[in-house]
């Protein structure tokens, strides 16, 4: 459900890689933009989004997690 890092905003602080509970990111060296090495293992906990000091991370939720819903008007018919 890979997190996506905005390369222009990221300052390579390494926070996302350090705090991700699933170890999704890998950072080759300090100051480098981490890579999303194991995107499929993301738990959508949102920690990387919340803790990135530059708001450089967003989550791309996979298509099939679609949160099924209907127009609630159907309940009143």
């Amino acid at each position: 459900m890979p997190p996506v890092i905005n390369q222009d905003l990221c300052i390579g602080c390494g926070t996302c890689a350090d705090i991700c509970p699933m170890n999704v990111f890998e950072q080759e060296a300090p100051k480098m933009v981490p890579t999303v090495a194991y995107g499929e293992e993301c738990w959508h906990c949102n920690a990387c989004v919340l803790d990135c000091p530059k708001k450089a991370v967003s989550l791309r939720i996979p298509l099939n997690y679609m949160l099924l819903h209907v127009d609630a008007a159907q309940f009143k018919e």
Partner: protein
Amino acid sequence: MLTLKNTLETDVLVIGGGIGGLCAAISAAQGGAKVIVLEKANSRRSGSGATGNDHFTCYYPKAHGNDMAPILKELLDSMLGLCHDTRLSVRFLERSISIADKWHEWGINMKPFGDDYVFMGHAFPNRPRIFLKYDGHNQKQVLTAQAKKAGAVILNHHPVLDLLRNDEGITGALALDMSGKEPSYTVVRAKKVIIATGAASRLYPPAGTPGWLFNTAFCPSCTGAAQAQSWRIGAKLVNMELPNRHAGPKYFSRAGKSTWIGVYRYPDGKLLGPFVTKATREVGDITCDVWNSAYSDVLMNGRGPAYIDCTGTGPEDMKFMRAGMISEGLGALLDYMDDKGIDPSKHGVEFMQYEPHLIGRGLEIDINGETSVHGLYAAGDMVGNFRSDISGAAVWGWMEGEHAAANLESGSLVEAEKSEWAQERMAYYDSFLTRPSGAHWKEAALGLQQIMGDYAAAGPHRVRSETLLCAGLKYLADLRRNAEANVKAANAHELLRAVEAFELMDNGEVIMHAARERKESRGMHQRSDYTFTNPLLSDKFLTVRKENGNVITEWRQRWSA
């Protein structure tokens, strides 16, 4: 090749820097003990409480009155109450509010609505409310800071692989140090060990999105480590065969369903349950806490699907719900809904039952939180004879830290890393890294889920039986043998995933042994060969342990208050 780089010594070793582990670390350190925490990820954001929770079950005499009995009854009647030794429930309730006080003092907002605690949600109409509503969005950072302040040393990126013991009791643990570029082993020698590794996710095929192993309601890096590692050294596990299934939005798996304020409806608008016609922040629709299998039942009988409908919820309560979802760590879900234009004040959202996982099933603890292995304590989701989720982890963690620190003289430091078991396990894990080629961990993980789903299935509408369970045990042994001989880990990350798959296999094996022994149907443990519920077992718990390679199952009376 993995080598033992670090051998450390401490009074109290805490395994898992989740809610229970951090509370244990703080109290043990405040009690004067030297404390090390070994955490798989980073305690600031790890585990099921990573980005927040919002309900803290507890007993508050000022709001509930001086008679604890009705509150105890409420706890035991709730979705948390199935597998409690009541003696432990009472001890928990007595101490619970004092831990909420501490959390508030440290900076977790336990009183977001004014000067006093407020109890809301998960409640039956006209019954006492036992869920303290709080704002836990920063709970992990706050507890981490407190643990450090108290003097505990937290080693992040140090998953524990095995517990170490001798004839007297616990002696320490073996961990994988993944904090640097080159992984290595760390052994911590300890007088007391408190294990708190959370739930066991990823045992069964994900009910919503098969193949997507990490779309789970609870943290998928909690993989039953405590149950597996304790089982290997002969500790007693309890209630492992009684399945638990969480529910929530479909196909976006996420715990925290009770933060939604709405009523459950059939597609034509008819209500699913009898409890309320309109939901408020004080009393939501508790139907699915009570009728746990509702979402599956209505699919199986064709009357579904079932939706949560928040359109009758007032605007103030809707705002309140959104704030609650943030406190609860549902930010990713909210972002997704905003992005896709899904608005709970306009849309009905389908709910589903997720796959079974272990919570409140696992290690048996005594009144001090100690397991059947001397000096080994257990706190939180992986305890088998008590369950109260966030507050259960916090309160028991705290009490165990206190007890361990006060009883250090009954433990001793030994050269745990030299034991045959430690040497054997180090060679074992190393083999996955050093073999030149082989199978991927995912093959082992998926294999386990297939077998669990087919041969140790949980209800509703699925059965277990002697023949299925025996076949399952055979197939699991085959899978394990093949996986042990073939899995290749390219790096520490893959090794960790492989370790988790083997931990889950241990959990699966224990579940199947225990399920064979429970010759009746109860809850979601449905036996086709014993279709009745046996009243003689109502006040009995089933324990399982391994002794000299043999599996021993024993029934015992539930411990009354």
